[in-house]
């Protein structure tokens, strides 16, 4: 098993750390879902968080976003301790879960207003950001439609944009492209790149390994451990594999839980 080096940060983003996890663990009864994982994510990085179902990805994300308390270990997100400064962490992160997270019975505009207001944005701020958001997504004519009436791909893009509404420094995406067609997936990744170019750190889990190739760095979780971590190119070289798919399968095959 390869342990990730303690403070490996890719050359492009050496300045500040967006996330630092140190021996972060979560135990459910006798089951250790996340077993002392340590890694760093640099500001502005697109970080792919891979792993088979049940490898512990979602548990790790839930700890980093303050939804779940860690059993042991520590982590800082956006410079704040997730245990003691959870409220500050929450102000600085965006989150989009694998379950659709907007309100179906509210319109696009009402959803934007709700989430903007929850993050403390004023009416003027919401109005100007809503305008930008809708024109970027080419949704301007759909502002008064109920979200429930939109196609899934639109909903996902909208949910991502709403998660960025308050300009978080980090956005967590838990399988954002599940069930979405290839064209929309590509558009979605263009949005991700745009966000990263604006300086937002993107922490993304996915099952599509072609998507993982778009990440600056990826980590692969197996049985609650991080079994591999590096740029897509370095991982392929390390495992003498043609693509990430091969790396993933080789690591996941050694798993006992999945």
């Amino acid at each position: 098993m390869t342990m990730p080096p303690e403070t490996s940060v890719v050359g492009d983003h050496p300045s500040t750390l967006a996330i630092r996890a140190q021996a972060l663990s979560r135990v459910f009864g006798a089951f250790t879902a996340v077993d002392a994982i340590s890694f760093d994510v640099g500001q502005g990085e697109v970080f792919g968080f891979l792993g088979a179902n049940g490898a512990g990805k979602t548990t790790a994300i839930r700890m980093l976003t303050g939804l779940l308390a860690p059993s042991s270990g520590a982590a800082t997100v956006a410079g704040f301790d997730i245990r003691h400064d959870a409220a500050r962490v929450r102000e600085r992160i965006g989150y989009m879960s694998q379950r659709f997270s907007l309100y179906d019975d509210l319109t696009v505009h009402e959803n934007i207003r709700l989430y903007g207001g929850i993050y403390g944005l004023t009416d003027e701020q919401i109005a100007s950001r809503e305008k930008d958001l809708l024109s970027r997504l080419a949704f301007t004519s759909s502002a008064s439609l109920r979200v429930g009436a939109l196609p899934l791909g639109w909903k996902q893009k909208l949910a991502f944009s709403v998660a960025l509404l308050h300009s978080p420094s980090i956005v967590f995406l838990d399988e954002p492209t599940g069930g979405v067609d290839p064209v929309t997936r590509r558009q979605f990744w263009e949005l991700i790149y745009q966000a990263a170019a604006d300086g937002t750190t993107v922490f993304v889990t996915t099952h599509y390994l072609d998507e993982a190739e778009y990440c600056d760095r990826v980590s692969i979780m197996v049985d609650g451990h991080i079994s591999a971590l590096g740029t897509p190119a370095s991982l392929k070289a390390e495992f003498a594999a043609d693509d990430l798919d091969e790396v993933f399968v080789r690591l996941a095959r050694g798993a006992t839980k999945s």
Partner: protein
Amino acid sequence: MMWRALQVMMEKEFKQILRDTVISRMLFVMPLIQLAVLANAATFEVKRAALWVVDLDQTPVATAMVDRLTASGRFYIAGSGMSPAQGERSLLDGRATAVLTIPQGFARDIGTSGRSTVQLVLNAVNGSQAGVTQGYATQIIARYAAELGARGAGPQGQSPTARPSVRPMVEVRTRGWYNASLDYRRFMVPGILVQLITMIGTLMTALNIVREKEAGTLEQLNVAPLSPGTFIAGKLLPLWIISLGVFSAGLLIAVFGFDVPMEGSLLLLYAGAALFLVGALGVGLWISTIADTQQQALFVTFAVLMVYILMSGLFTPVRGMPEWVRTLAQANPLLQFIALTRAIMLRGAEAMDVWREFLALGLIGPTVLALAIRQSRKSVA
């Protein structure tokens, strides 16, 4: 408290509730239907009981007594005959709910000793109904007996004092709860109004939050920098306001549609309702923390409300329950609020008269809400 977040949360809740056609329609129609149907159905009054008469005496005195019973409108003759066995059978097969047996020599005994006995057998499967029927029969017969005594005294030229034994011919025991002069609807409507807002307040709160759990939007809110206080206020305040609105609608229907008097202070009544709802919504919040699906929430809510309502004194008086139930029932906010509503609306009670109920509601509501909030925080971490 984060005012900006609270504002948008409340806006969202009102929009969602009023936009849900089924829920918003129920909010307006339910008070009307519940009050109209339940107020009439939930009465202990017995309009016309089926009477079987076994008249073994066959005298004008006996016949006149039967006439009195039917003339009262409380009884109608389902059948009659000379056989006591037949009378019993009519009770068994359900043709009659009461059998009146007038023994042979009934009129003669009254003439000679001023005393006689009739037998009234009741189908007491429905205990309260039987009690009411018995009450009516006893009253009518007693009145007839008194008349007989008075009339019997006149024509024969005897002074009433000469035969004092005639007067108490039939002993009548009057119990307040079937007092014929009592209007049951007046008594029931305030109670039904209370259980209506309990139902709406508790059920809507529980379902509302669990629905967000199911949809995954609750997780989204949990990731947001929304303080627990803001979240709970944003959820409960709209429901609290809507419940008070339903209470007002029900109150209007009760006063103008059912002639229920509003003797006391409206302000005092609303103060009680506002306080009571704190607990009712608190129970809903508590249910939402233990249920993961709306189905579970619905099931738990009905189980809780059932106990609430049965121990509230709405349908059955708590006074008749065992000591430990009576003690426990004092902690039932529904019981306190029903007592309060009846006292204010029907008797015109003032703050000094109902301070006990206010104290109880003031203790129960915030305690329940505090426990529910503690529980909801635990379930997030």
